């Protein structure tokens, strides 16, 4: 197992960072944050066409590049740093993962190439009004009819649910939890945007009224698939959180170097210097937590991944929020304004904290997985 980054992985980071510096700079983030759909089709196509980011970890047989999770983690780290507003997390970390892990070769062959090419924006609809990420939280029902499966019920807090061309929906069937694919234009589907605290990642509420859906994988077998999908997404979200935290620290450090008070740069005062040092300790520790998850994913070790994923979410969520909050503090009054980008990171941190379950929930998952 290689626990360092290879030269190729370093190069990937450099390429993605310079791409995002150009296409996801502060102006772009603010423009998309203010837009209800929050997506730039040109940038999305370039991400796929020039860099192959949507298909990075999709196997070659489905039109992807077949790279591993460490590579994908590098991209999410950079996406977090740039506060990328594109539906990348929903499409790649949630939907593509669910498809990759389901026992349905036909669905993979039908749906993954569109994701890999950038033609399909996709998401996973799991949470409902209860806001739960566990199996009992899934109440939406599906029933089999002579014309195929139909969904009835509602999903909410669905990342990029308004934008997605393809919705993967977890539903309860007579056989248990099952996964379904629903097209954006399906009959009986109503999509309502949810105005969000963090405007850089959109959410939607989806209502299904006898909506036709395609069963993915054997009926009743989806929960283990979803559990593994959530674990993977948790690790990738952790990588994104690390990137966001690192950017928040960089901004604070840059400011502390030039902002003069009492006749010298504030970064020369230990009160500020030590706070920045503590922020870096949080970030490097969070980086370890995220990397452990990426290594476990690349090693194909489901047990280790489940542990590392819960740990990564518990740890990285809090680290990002802490660091983003400290960054506002170091920026002083200017950091508390709408004009300054510090709040964008803080809000992304707070929303990421609950995106896949709260830190407390992940601690309980971890405790259960460790038998504590």
């Amino acid at each position, binding site marked *: *197992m*290689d*626990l*360092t980054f290879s030269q190729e992985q370093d190069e990937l980071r450099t390429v993605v960072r310079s791409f995002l510096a150009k296409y996801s700079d502060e102006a772009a983030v603010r423009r998309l944050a203010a837009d209800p759909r929050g997506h730039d089709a040109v940038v999305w196509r370039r991400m796929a066409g020039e860099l192959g980011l949507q298909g990075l970890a999709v196997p070659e047989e489905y039109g992807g590049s077949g790279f591993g999770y460490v590579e994908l983690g590098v991209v999410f780290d950079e996406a977090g740093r740039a506060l990328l507003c594109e539906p990348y997390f929903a499409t790649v970390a949630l939907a593509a993962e669910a498809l990759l892990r389901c026992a349905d070769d036909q669905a993979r062959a039908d749906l993954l190439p569109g994701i890999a090419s950038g033609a399909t924006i996709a998401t996973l609809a799991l949470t409902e009004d209860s806001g739960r990420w566990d199996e009992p939280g899934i109440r939406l029902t599906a029933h089999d009819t002579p014309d195929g499966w139909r969904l009835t019920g509602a999903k909410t807090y669905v990342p990029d649910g308004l934008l997605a061309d393809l919705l993967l929906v977890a539903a309860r069937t007579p056989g248990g939890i099952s996964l379904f694919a629903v097209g954006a234009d399906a009959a009986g589907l109503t999509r309502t945007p949810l105005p969000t605290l963090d405007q850089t990642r959109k959410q939607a509420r989806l209502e299904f009224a006898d909506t036709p859906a395609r069963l993915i994988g054997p009926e009743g077998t989806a929960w283990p698939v979803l559990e593994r999908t959530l674990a993977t997404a948790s690790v990738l979200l952790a990588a994104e959180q690390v990137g966001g935290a690192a950017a928040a*620290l960089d901004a604070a*450090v840059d400011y*502390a*170097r030039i902002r003069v008070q009492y006749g*010298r*740069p504030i*970064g*020369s*005062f*230990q009160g*500020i*210097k*030590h706070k*920045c*040092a*503590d922020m*870096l*300790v949080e970030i*490097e*520790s969070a*980086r*370890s*937590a995220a*990397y*452990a998850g990426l*290594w*476990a994913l690349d090693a194909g070790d489901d047990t*280790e991944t489940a542990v590392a994923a819960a*740990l990564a979410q*518990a*740890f990285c969520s809090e680290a990002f929020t802490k660091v983003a909050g400290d960054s506002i503090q170091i920026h002083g009054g200017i950091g508390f304004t709408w004009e300054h980008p510090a709040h964008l990171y803080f809000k992304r941190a707070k929303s990421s904290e609950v995106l896949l379950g709260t830190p*407390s929930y992940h*601690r309980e998952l*971890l*405790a259960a997985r*460790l038998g*504590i």
Partner: protein
Amino acid sequence: MELDFGPAVRDFREELRDWLADHLVGEFAEHRGVGGPTDGAAWEVRLAWDRELSAGGWLGVGWPREYGGRGLGLLEEIVFEYEYARANAPYRATGNALDLLGPMLLKVGADEQKKRFLPPILAVEELWGQGFSEPGAGSDLASVRTRAERDGDEWVVSGQKVWTSFGVHADWLYVLTRTDPDSVRHKGLSMLLLPTDQPGVEIRPIRNLAGQDEFAEVFLSDARTGADMVVGEVGQGWRTAMATLGIERGTTLLPQQLTFEREAESLIELARERGALDDPMLRRRIVDAWISVRVMRTTNLRTLAELTAGRTPGAQATTAKLYASTRHQQLGHLAQELAGPAGQIVGADYGLDTRQRSFLLSLAETIYGGSSEIQRNIIGEQILGLPKEPRP
């Protein structure tokens, strides 16, 4: 997660595991986990254990053969430390010379110094103490005032050193001295090797808060050592000292982390016995303790992987000490809380159990090897590039 470095290292690991299984028995096994980087307990047994290790050829795994080492590489050294800690073997009484002085001599010492001093270290024939800190120079080593003046073929050394780990046992000291009386701060310092068996050296033990003679204060009054006992260049002692401290920060964390993992496991066991896992507040702290030792493990693996790949370790190599030392203290507080009133009761002659000793000694971890405040300055200035504090 296990480190796997290929077949040759795997054989080395097997040989080591077998040897440890055969030799870590009897009174050595009774002293598993005894001691620590700052712990003076069970000295005689640990010294005997070091001799056992020496006889088995396990001291100086990475040192050249001509000085009695095994001549193996960094990988084997890492595997040795890892397996050694995994077996919970007693802490090495000679650690100071093995981990600090030896690597320093190998790095900047003269050939004669290496030939003279390295073999007796590996044979456990000469024990060493570090004479860096002074009453007026703890973390601020540039304030060192101990003077050394040339007198013919000798240096004459006067001053006071303190916090000399295992100083009462030291046959030799490596001492940071000011050889240019007009110099200030880190200029004009030299690293001298000084025998303790002479009238000008007086060593008094200092008891630590766990009741052990862990360190000593050293009084030097016209103590003498040869002119050829300078390590590195005269006047370049600061550079030599910094090289040593870099080694110290890098090597002590791996075995420590495995100890912390064992402590976390035993903490969970204790919590289970006492029914504390049903208390959500305690369970949260227990999970956090487990998380922090797992994070330490991954951080160390990152550094080791970078070192073995020939890369310069990233920022985590510097942040690791601050993280580990503070989190270990939290773990100790939690363990004491779980132990409840029973955790306050000690044995005869202030005899501490492993948990109590580790908890109390953890208070030193945010002080030795550069205090947490110094660590934050280093991180802020050297890694983040923040401006230095103006000096008066």
